[in-house]
């Protein structure tokens, strides 16, 4: 099967500091990949490079399109839903308006049934439709961000540290939904995580970044057995 997303020797820098160093990996259609690594390893920058939010060199292809030079909104329109770090919730808009923005690039017709699908995953959102999204709790905001991303009907869902600052129970709920979406709807997922345990359990593949380079990659099962990965990221 052809790769849905492919990065070839992607490098990026912030001023004199090199954030990514020839990063290459690919993600198959319907597969799941976790990007692991410590703070500052370049995980977030990798996602931002894919969405063309940072200056970079190298080649990125998505679903057969070269997207290295497309604007972020064009990449979103191709079917990449990117939930950024901090979730990208528009706090002064209502929950409902945030959700409607998920379907912004689509025709309205199918919105109602899609919304019901989102409420099925996250019933709590339906209770808070008219509320400013900024007043939601952290977990609810993450659910809103995820629900909104699903309304984009993406082919690839990219999540940047969905577990950050959330209670373990909420994290489990969110990863549960991710796993279900992948199994039932074949949604490809690329997730950046610091919590390697939960990420390796959900994703079929993983890629470990260290100071801007890919140091290990492969199926999650193998990485879990890998001595260095275990010691550095799993803590046992």
């Amino acid at each position: 099967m052809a790769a849905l997303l492919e990065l070839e020797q992607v490098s990026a820098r912030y001023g004199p500091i090199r954030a990514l160093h020839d990063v290459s990996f690919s993600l198959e259609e319907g597969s799941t990949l976790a990007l692991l690594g410590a703070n500052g390893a370049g995980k977030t920058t990798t996602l931002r490079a894919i969405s063309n939010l940072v200056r970079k060199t190298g080649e990125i292809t998505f679903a057969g399109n070269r997207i290295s030079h497309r604007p972020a909104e064009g990449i979103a329109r191709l079917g990449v839903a990117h939930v950024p770090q901090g979730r990208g919730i528009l706090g002064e808009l209502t929950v409902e308006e945030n959700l409607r923005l998920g379907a912004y690039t689509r025709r309205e017709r199918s919105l109602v049934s899609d919304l019901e699908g989102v409420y099925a995953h996250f019933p709590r959102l339906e209770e808070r439709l008219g509320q400013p999204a900024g007043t939601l709790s952290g977990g609810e905001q993450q659910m809103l961000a995820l629900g909104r991303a699903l309304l984009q009907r993406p082919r690839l869902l990219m999540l940047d540290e969905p577990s950050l600052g959330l209670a373990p129970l909420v994290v489990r709920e969110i990863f549960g939904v991710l796993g279900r979406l992948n199994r039932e709807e074949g949604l490809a997922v690329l997730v950046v995580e610091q919590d390697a345990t939960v990420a390796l359990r959900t994703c079929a593949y993983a890629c470990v970044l260290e100071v801007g380079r890919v140091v290990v990659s492969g199926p999650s099962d193998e990485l879990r057995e890998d001595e260095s990965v275990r010691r550095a990221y799993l803590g046992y």
Partner: protein
Amino acid sequence: MVLLAASWSDVAQQVVSGLATGSIYASLALGIVIIYRSTGVINFAQGEMATFSTFIAWWLIEDPNGPEWPFWGAFVVTLVVSFAGGVLVERVLIRPVEGAPVLTIVMITLGLAIALNGLVSWIWGAETRSFPGAFSTRPVHVVSVTFSIQDAGFVAILLAAVACLYVFFRYTKTGLGLRAAAAGREASRLLGVRVGWMLALGWGIAAMLGALSGIMTAPTAFLDPNMMQGVLLYAFAAAVLGGLDSPIGAVVGGLVLGVLLNLLGTYVPHWFGGQMRLVGGLLVIFTVLLVRPQGLFGRVAVRRV
């Protein structure tokens, strides 16, 4: 106390004509607020853009070398041209400095103001002209208050503009996109919102609102290249009073300011009458910034951490 000596009908009279002047301030202030919300920049060219639009209207209606159209036809065309002009300004002047420090962009709007002022004089000459009013200045008596049809017309124009904007921002997809772009640029882009065009659209709308206020100003004063400079100051005062990031605030601020300055000018003429009216406007800006910097309706961030 002077105020006590005034009859109620006198006061009501001043309030009504204050609302009419306030409508002029409000529409210009609304333009300022729309640009401020989406770009975080105060557009100092807002007044001169409005003057330019008003001259276009004058050319379409009055200029013997122009097409001499009827007022309302020219009105609509002026709005359309102003919208296009606003979009063009954003694309050509503001877009290239996207991401530059706020001061850079402010300087560009100041330069634009000076350039447009010169351009108006260059194209149409600097002399003062009379501008036709859309509404008759015939007085109407309602109960004990007398006002002109023009006064009522101005308030009606403002309310119509506000209603259109409300429907646009609240109930259309593009309106939602515009609000999203103002609320969070990057997050909106990741949702597929073409943020660059949304900003241009905001400039277009602001230019249209400026045209409205210019077309309302010209018949009450005279049309000349510096016509909107005073009005711009009142519009700033109105926007600051309402809270710079609140559209409702701009409208309420404009109306309140119009009424306030009218009352002050009438009952405390020594301090605020005639030319001293501008001082009242500056005083409002100063007081609001000192006492309540977020204005009447300004945002106090709603956030739960």
